């Protein structure tokens, strides 16, 4: 059963990248008669930062949703940690070790930052509803342990000052950071970021980039991200998949992708003559 590829590679800055964590084999996804994704294959290796880029409507978000298990492709196979994955419920995906953030923030506006991040720990809690509402015995101990983990993340992302602030009152850039915090709270092996820098100013982008690199470095989390900002993508990622009209048109290191003629054409357009 286990087909995990154990050989890895070493990045330019000396990080060791491990074997294949997730592999997409010949994925095709259709909505009615529309082919959102056509026959795409690529892999995500342990410890790497993998970007998926492409012009608007290229099928990036669909691809992310296939990875997260939200969409089940009509053709092709998704292999995760050496096992072939079937249709799954969202909580099953979370338990497998996959967490994500959303393009248009999906936090609980009325709840505090702390409570929002605590929801990320949900898959790690075992005690039942009764014990938790009575705050008794194991439930108390469990909550304390989880709170400690959450506090580590709050410290890591430097959001101590807004710990008790309701999320609805926060500016956009901070909300994005809280969402990242919640995803991290689940202690994922694979973290999916859907346009983490969208709508941010330069300073917020720099902060976010630093946090993404730090997460990867400090927790060894594998990261797959979709992003429009080419500068950010080229600086952050180890390998890039380029999509256009649902097809893969490039795959490789940022430098390889940058010099790929198909990619240049897709982004800049081709002269019709």
């Amino acid at each position, binding site marked *: 059963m286990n087909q995990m590829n154990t050989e890895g590679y070493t990045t330019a800055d*000396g990080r060791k990248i491990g074997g294949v964590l997730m592999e997409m084999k010949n994925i095709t996804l259709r909505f009615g008669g529309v082919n959102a994704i056509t026959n795409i294959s690529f892999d995500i290796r342990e410890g790497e930062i993998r970007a998926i880029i492409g012009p608007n409507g290229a099928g990036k978000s669909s691809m992310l949703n296939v990875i997260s298990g939200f969409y089940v492709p009509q053709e092709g196979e998704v292999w995760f940690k050496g096992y072939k994955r079937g249709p799954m419920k969202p909580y099953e995906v979370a338990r497998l070790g996959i967490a994500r953030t959303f393009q248009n923030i999906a936090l609980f506006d009325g709840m505090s930052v*702390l409570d929002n991040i605590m929801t990320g720990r949900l898959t790690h809690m075992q005690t039942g509803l009764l014990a938790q509402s009575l705050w008794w015995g194991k439930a108390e101990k469990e909550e304390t342990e989880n*709170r*400690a983990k959450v*506090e*580590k993340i*709050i*410290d*890591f992302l*430097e959001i*101590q*000052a807004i*710990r008790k602030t309701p999320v609805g009152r926060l500016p956009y850039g901070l909300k994005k950071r809280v969402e990242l915090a919640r995803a991290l709270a689940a202690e994922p092996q694979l973290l999916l970021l859907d346009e983490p820098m969208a709508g941010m100013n330069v300073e917020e982008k720099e902060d976010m980039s630093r946090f993404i690199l*730090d997460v990867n*470095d*400090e927790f060894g989390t594998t990261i797959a991200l979709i992003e429009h900002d080419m500068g950010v993508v080229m600086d952050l990622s180890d390998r890039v998949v380029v999509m256009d009209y649902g097809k893969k048109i490039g795959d490789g290191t940022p430098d390889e992708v940058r010099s790929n003629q198909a990619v240049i054409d897709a982004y800049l357009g081709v002269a019709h003559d």
Partner: protein
Amino acid sequence: MTTVPQGALQSLPALLARNVQSFPTRPAYREKEFGIWQSWTWAEAAEEIRAMALGFLVLGLERGEHVAIIGRNRPALYWAMIAVDMCGAVPVPLYQDAVADEMAYVLDHCGARFVVAGDQEQVDKVLEVQEKLAGSGTDVAHIAYLDKRGMRKYDHAKMNALADVQAEGRAAATRLGGELDARIAELTYDHTCVMLYTSGTTGKPKGVVLSNRNIIETSKNSAEFDHLRTSDDILAYLPMAWVGDFIFSMGQALWTGFTVNCPENAATMMTDLREIGPTYFFAPPRVFETQLTNVMIRMEDAGRFKKRMFDHYMGVARRIGPAILDGRPVSAMDRFRYWLGNVFVYGPLKNTLGFSRIRVGYTAGEAIGPEIFDFYRSLGINLKQLYGQTEASVFITQQPDGQVRSDTVGVPSPGVELKIGENGEVFYRSPGVFVEYFKNAESTASTKDKDGWVATGDAGFFEDGTGHLRIIDRAKDVGKMADGHLFAPKYIENKLKFYPNILEAVVFGAGRATCTAFINIDLTAVGNWAERNNIAYASYQELSQHPKVLETIAGHVEEVNRSVAADPMLAGCQIHRFLILHKELDADDGEMTRTRKVRRKVIEEKFADLIDALYGGKDSIYTETEVTYEDGRKGAIKATLTIRDAVVQPVGQRMAAE
């Protein structure tokens, strides 16, 4: 309180040992981390400090060497300073927001071989400095860092985490314990306790060498003056490189044995202040000003009932509060009114500000606006002023309970002698007087005479009757105008700065016929006003040049002119023309010191074109200014500034009316 003979307490490590013996289980340090106040008793802290000191010995720290300490206020960094003292070496705390250039000068000047850095940001700066200093003889041999975050990929040949240094120290306890005990035992009153670099309004910073005698005597005297207790709590949030923090969080804390609380980070300081509710608190006027501005802005948004109740009881407080605080006779009815006010307004307000438990509060560094000062005192907060310097180990004068006023700085602190020189300059002599400026005998000689009298550089006088000292200005800034009138810029600037809309002001006029001023608006206050009046603005620069803002500021300037005109000595200092600067004066651009005092010379040179325009009669001027961003990069701001005339009072005529 203690069984150890006082004579033996000649160093901070000795005080630590006494505290461990006298009250081992009382909390010594607290720090908010991971959402919880972590605390260390004196016994636990002493164990950590000893491990750190042993770790430094393992690294080869020699007697008399300097160890730079850079970071925000954290218990481990305070411990590092005591540990360095234990080894017979000298701790040199640096300003954490210092840019690499400033740091390079200090590290090179004191020749630090060891650096204790708070986090990655500080380590990066030290590494940058290290490259610059390569080959100059100063070589940072080892960096110990506190926060491990982001440090994994660094070359650790010459650095290590502070916790690992401690671990190595613990492992070497048997081998080096004897050596450490011997080094602690040799410490006397004459050994250097700490070296602090003064920010210096002029020229390069100077290293002020303070001995154990300076620190311990001063701490003892001042702690007794204000009856500090073991049960007191302070919040350590002011820069560790500043002498005040060293006296409060190290000297007085070790002498008295009270608890030092460190905030989680700079952004949570206000929340942490509220949670701790310090009983002994120090803040520069700026902090009190900001808090008052925030309260007033929030009250503007309150409902009509709350607003009226607030206004009514604040009126009551202003009338009765100070009298109660000073112990003057107050009628039973007034006491009852004040009590009601306390239930409805003052109590909750103080709680929100974090001042519920305060017994002694100090402010110093700059003049504080009388209405700000009175606001806090009327709430029943015992806010007082002190006057001090790094060279005096802080205390020169302070206000005793019951004799507190906003316009004086108090009477000489215990053990301090004062005299006024012929030119009006204040001189002092005390056990706290510094040993010398490090490697700068010339400056030492020009500041301290052979009898130990030190020139403060400030001009002042004793008030008749009360014996309180009043400070007018820096002695060297007090000058003459072209017509011979006295020119005291700081005096005028302070009057301007008392307006919430004005953050900073710089007045020019020495040797000229008239006075002119640069003004910085306060973005919080003016921004709030703009919001209320539907005035859109994109930047500080745009808001500062808005005609209505100029109008308001002109009003303030004219009010100041009226009040200055009433004083025949200073009537010549009225401001004839002013402009609002297009950028905030900033320490990163060298326009202010790290303690936020304006550097007149720098500003005069940098903005020479603007000064020419002020005196040249133009209505507006185009200018470009270089600015330094927080990460050290440079950029330029371009702006066209409006210059306004202000109405001045004819000198001498209004005197009868006032």
